[in-house]
């Protein structure tokens, strides 16, 4: 069969919403796009453990400590599901990790912002996980089977993340004046970076988008961002806090909230590596991996010894 035919059949499957599975024929570009996106997603989960991880030792109560640890551990699990999904496309996890460490592969810029106070744990859960969930719910229907299945599992677990974040802010919002100030300050700092998580505006897209054609993605950046703003603008009323955007206003004609312009210069600076914590995050990941090298080698050496031992016996 000619590759032209194969490509046609492939597109037909996509159009009929039939999932693509690892051993199925797929265009090289589809494989590459998925490998890149899934591994970036995995890196985002793993790097995302770091800002919150900084607060485990300082969590204000034992209950919050346990919740925070469980949540961060989940993120590690999510990274693992995603690495496994990407591995079905033929790239080893080790290669993906090397690409992250060398700077070749990227992760979500949001984790290059610092987690400065305890209230940031709530704001990250509510806003950052909230924004991620919008994307992830859509990705449960993505065309590549292993990615879609990983996302289903992740989404099930993530809903606890956003809820615990909001609940933790709710407690602050009902607390002392200092606690309310912590809460508002964290929302102020995380709001715009959370909006940036949806990526550039649709109108700035200059090339035809294969991701939509291949149904890797099923909604545009602006659609998802609007959905997010509409949701948060309502939820914040429950907290009795405000969003740091004077332009935020209900638009009855559009049936959506209008909101202000994102600072795109900042967005690109952080993508380029100039965010407040880019270096620290990557260093932390590299250090963990390098310091773990002898541990991984030892386990492998031990397994090899035992294997030969059993065979000889």
């Amino acid at each position, binding site marked *: 069969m000619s590759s032209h035919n194969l490509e046609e059949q492939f597109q037909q499957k996509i159009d009929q919403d039939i999932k693509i599975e690892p051993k*199925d024929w797929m265009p090289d570009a589809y494989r590459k796009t998925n490998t890149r996106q899934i591994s970036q997603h995995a890196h985002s989960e793993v790097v995302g453990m770091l800002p919150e991880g900084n607060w485990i030792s300082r969590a204000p109560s034992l209950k919050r400590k346990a919740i925070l640890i469980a949540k961060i551990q989940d993120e590690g699990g999510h990274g693992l599901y995603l690495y496994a999904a990407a591995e079905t496309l033929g790239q080893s996890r*080790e290669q993906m990790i090397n690409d992250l460490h060398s700077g070749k592969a990227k992760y979500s810029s949001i984790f290059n912002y610092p987690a400065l106070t305890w209230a940031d744990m709530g704001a990250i859960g509510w806003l950052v996980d909230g924004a991620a969930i919008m994307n992830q719910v859509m990705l449960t229907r993505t065309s590549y089977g292993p990615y879609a299945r990983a996302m289903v*599992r992740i989404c099930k677990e993530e809903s606890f993340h956003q809820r615990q974040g909001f609940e933790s802010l709710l407690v602050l919002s009902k607390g002392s004046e200092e606690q309310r100030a912590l809460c508002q300050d964290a929302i102020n700092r995380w709001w715009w970076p959370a909006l940036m*998580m949806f*990526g550039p505006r649709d109108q700035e897209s200059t090339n035809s988008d294969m991701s939509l054609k291949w149904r890797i993605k099923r909604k545009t950046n602006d659609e998802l961002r609007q959905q997010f703003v509409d949701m948060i603008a309502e939820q914040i009323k429950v907290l009795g806090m405000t969003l740091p955007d004077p332009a935020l206003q209900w638009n009855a004609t559009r049936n959506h909230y209008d909101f202000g312009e994102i600072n795109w210069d900042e967005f690109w600076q952080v*993508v380029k590596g100039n965010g407040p914590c880019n270096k620290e995050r990557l260093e932390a990941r590299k250090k963990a991996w390098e310091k773990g*090298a002898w541990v991984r080698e030892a*386990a492998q050496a031990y397994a090899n010894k035992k*294997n030969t031992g059993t065979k000889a016996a």
Partner: protein
Amino acid sequence: MKQFIKKLYYGDIPDAGSGTTPSNDQQPRTDWPLWEVFIRSKQGLDHKHVGSLHASDAQMAIENARDVYTRRQEGVSIWVVESKHLTASNPAEAGELFEPAADKVYRHPTFYNLPDQVNYM
């Protein structure tokens, strides 16, 4: 700002202009082997494939599976098998493998019309 902008999505960050130069010193491969994980979610049900993970040996694979895939009591039993030992059917042969079953309608109970008195059969 003159920037070639490709559409971005969560987990889809542009490669270019990161300010870091990709290094070429690839380490030799030392990955622990990959294992496929199957979980029985409750007594009486089949083990079902849930995903994969890395482990240096079978015992560790079981324990990693426990920590990774049953954090919320999703299982009562675990199977692991090293991925390289799995043989899969070839999707290109799906036609000859599976389509011949399509016209054997007489294998299904609904093929047979019975009088009402015995139709619960």
